[in-house]
């Protein structure tokens, strides 16, 4: 091992592997590829059709509707997430807290087919919750309609909001609470004067992510919407590229969607980064909350528990109860299942390695820009650019990659799964950057002077300072990204001509061959594997190299 480090050290001297210039290039990868895909779309779009499209009543309806439902879903997800985060932070059992955080992370990255099945198993016409609650529900009640769409969106996004909020709440300096007790703050005052100011800075980027997600998720909107009244631009893009092969119109629509999302971004973009105040702790450490036993906290916890019960626990339990059948273990005998699993794990592993690499360098670059007064503005702009990348949805990136590979570089031969890896990495880096930036910033402000005084740079700093201390959040980010890539269906739909079977594709194959029981079993296995991955990464982060 010693020789290996020496070799790396020599390499560093020769090729400036860790020099800032190199770092900046890697950092640019993400926005550049995003805007390059936008450029591809512009070059293929047909501006004249824009007026044609806008003048149609149908499009006006769906744009207004998309906007409205996305706004409502975002606000409700944020409110729900707030309650959940407050409850999680007040939990006394650290194990339960860690488990809940895993489930929260899992839900955001659940493939839509699983979420749909879970919600139907609970709240469908013959769902468990529907029959249990039949006394309270009106006779004509059905999950389909605007409330169904919003419910499904909350199912996906409330846990993400809760996770991000929890991270901020957990790291409130304990001294604040001592002060609050001296000032005889009640629970509401604590929330108003301590929690809210620390949550506020995350609200803008979080609401942008959730808004984009809700604005563009078409499978959920279609299944729960009921009629084509509830649909969005994303479906129209998909239709034009996959069925009609009308690339100019698809590109134009994609462009329109991007423009709308940019407008939302501009409304939300007055983002100023606010660093953490204290050293960041692990989620399994005890958290001091003086208001834990007040009435206000009880009421808020009951609301959070009901939200958790009805939105998270009931659907997840129902999917297991409803679809657990004799074929649960029989699936394991299928060689196709293993092949699909292997391919999925392979693609996800490569994605995670690639995105962890890019993310680390992006964070490092951003940090080094931020700490110098002169370049702080550049760092703020960099965050804005990274936020902008959220408006490029999977369909948009996949469409432009599709155009790029088929028309721009048709002669270059390379394995087609690289397309999938690259598309997945784009979103993985984005998500990881968003989840890790606060922690990384805090870590660096705590240890930068120490490492400078010890003369630790590059690889050595990574090995001695960064890796041991950042391992835990980094592995958590990796786990989320891994599961995201495992359940990806959009990019695989665009590039599956290469003959790759992944686990979500395998599920669709089974469904199309009428093997519904097996398909749901595969869904259950996908959930179990995803949870397993969280636990493996959780174990990894505990094992220390200095043990």
């Amino acid at each position: 091992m010693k020789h290996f480090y020496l070799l790396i050290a020599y390499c560093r001297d020769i090729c400036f592997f860790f020099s800032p210039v190199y770092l900046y290039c890697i950092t640019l990868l993400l926005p550049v590829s995003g805007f390059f895909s936008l450029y591809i779309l512009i070059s293929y779009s047909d501006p004249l059709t824009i007026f044609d499209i806008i003048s149609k009543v149908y499009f006006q309806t769906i744009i207004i509707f998309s906007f409205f439902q996305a706004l409502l879903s975002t606000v409700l997800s944020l409110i729900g997430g707030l309650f959940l985060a407050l409850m999680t932070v007040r939990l006394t059992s650290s194990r339960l807290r860690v488990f809940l955080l895993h489930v929260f992370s899992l839900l955001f990255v659940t493939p839509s087919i699983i979420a749909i099945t879970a919600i139907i198993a609970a709240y469908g016409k013959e769902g468990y919750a529907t029959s249990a609650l039949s006394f309270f529900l009106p006779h004509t009640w059905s999950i389909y309609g605007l409330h169904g769409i919003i419910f499904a969106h909350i199912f996906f996004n409330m846990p993400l909001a809760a996770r991000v909020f929890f991270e901020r709440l957990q790291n409130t300096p304990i001294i604040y609470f001592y002060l609050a007790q001296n000032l005889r703050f009640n629970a509401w005052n604590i929330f108003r004067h301590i929690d809210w100011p620390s949550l506020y800075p995350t609200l803008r980027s979080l609401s942008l992510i959730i808004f984009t997600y809700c604005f563009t998720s078409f499978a959920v909107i279609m299944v729960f919407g009921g009629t084509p009244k509830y649909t969005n631009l994303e479906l129209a893009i998909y239709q034009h590229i996959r069925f009609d092969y009308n690339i100019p119109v698809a590109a134009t629509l994609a462009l329109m969607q991007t423009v709308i999302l940019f407008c939302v971004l501009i409304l939300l973009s007055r983002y100023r980064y606010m660093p953490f105040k204290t050293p960041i702790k692990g989620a399994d450490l005890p958290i001091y909350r003086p208001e834990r036993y007040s009435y206000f906290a009880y009421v808020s916890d009951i609301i959070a528990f009901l939200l958790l019960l009805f939105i998270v626990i009931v659907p997840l339990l129902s999917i297991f109860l409803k679809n657990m059948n004799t074929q649960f273990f029989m699936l394991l005998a299928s060689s196709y299942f293993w092949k699909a699993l292997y391919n999925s794990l392979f693609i996800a592993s490569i994605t995670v390695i690639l995105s962890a690499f890019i993310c680390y360098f992006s964070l490092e670059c951003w940090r080094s820009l931020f700490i110098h007064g002169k370049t702080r503005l550049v760092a703020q702009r960099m965050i804005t650019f990274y936020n902008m990348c959220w408006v490029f949805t999977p369909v948009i990136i996949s469409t432009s990659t599709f155009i790029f590979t088929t028309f721009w570089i048709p002669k270059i031969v390379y394995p087609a799964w690289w397309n999938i890896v690259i598309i997945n990495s784009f979103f993985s880096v984005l998500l990881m950057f968003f989840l890790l930036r606060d922690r990384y910033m805090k870590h660096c402000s705590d240890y930068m002077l120490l490492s400078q005084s010890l003369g630790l740079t590059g690889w050595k700093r990574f090995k001695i300072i960064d890796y041991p201390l950042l391992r835990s959040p980094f592995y958590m980010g990796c786990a989320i990204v891994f599961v995201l890539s495992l359940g990806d269906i959009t990019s695989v739909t665009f590039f599956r001509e290469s003959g790759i079977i992944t686990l979500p594709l395998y599920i669709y194959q089974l469904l199309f061959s009428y093997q519904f029981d097996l398909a749901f079993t595969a869904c259950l296995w996908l959930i179990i594997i995803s949870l397993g991955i969280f636990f493996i990464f959780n174990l990894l982060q505990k094992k220390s190299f200095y043990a």
Partner: protein
Amino acid sequence: MYTLYRFTLNCAYVLSIVLFSLNPFTVTAKTKTQLTVYTYESFVGEWGPGPQLKKDFEAECQCELIFKAFGDGAALLTHLRVKKEQTQADVIMGLDNNLLFDALNTKALIPHTIDTSSLTLPIKDRIDIFLPYDYGYFSFIYNSEKLPHPPTSFEELVQNKNIRFIMQDPRSSTPGLGLLTTVKKTFDTQAADMWKKLSQQIVTVAPGWSEAYTLFLKGEAEMVWSYITSQAYHESIGEGKKYKAAIFNTGNYIQVENVAITKASLKRNFALAKKFMQFLLTDKAQAIIAQSNWMHSVTDYNEKLPIYFQNLPKASHTLYYKSQTVSENKTLWIEEWQNAMVE
């Protein structure tokens, strides 16, 4: 202990690197002549006809049959449009009757010159480039335990407001387009009015067939838009006659799946491609296709199919549009449907 721990960890690293360097998608080395067939996803799946066809054909031809899966028929067409004569495929399998006109326009396909006298298809409209290998009728499937008296026409369906059904979106799925063409063919200029009435009874418009059928089986609706042959599947797995096809007296729209030889195969193995197409019409292949794709056979093998195929209700008459008509009017019809549903 520490050394052992480090040792295990290093071993794990090495092992993972070795595992990852073994690319799971490598193609096996060329030994025999290869025939490349591009088809849709569910065809080559574990439960699709692909694996069994491959085994049987390889035993006959002493060659290697390679199936490559694209998403669906539309994705196959996109591939043809992009690659044209440069395609690596020798045979394209799975283009349905609505896509034929566009596929013809790519000029990447050539006539198959196979004797089609054994075909017993209900429609006689043929293009000498495409060889049909299976067909099916679209229809509503209903749960007979919940709906003892199914409607027999669209008018009856519209009158009984208690019956609710699930359909697929015509913009993203073939059966969805099937319902659109059925209504258009049956009601022509009144189609928009019919859609307005039908829209009251739609539970949801699912993105694809699999989502729609899943929802139906979970009890979300009394009926779902699918194929008549879906009934045969349920009977074959011993679900008795719970799920049945509702036959409307106005007729059923037909879907014919076709196979074609590419121009690119002329340089490689046109003869083998032809042999494969001939093989598809044999009883052996028709039996596999009918029973794992759940479609009717295109030859007189139909009569020899198992009892659950014989029990299927017959379509009162066949509804059909020429491929060119669908291709030219599709956008208009979809717009008409959208506007009717939104109002």
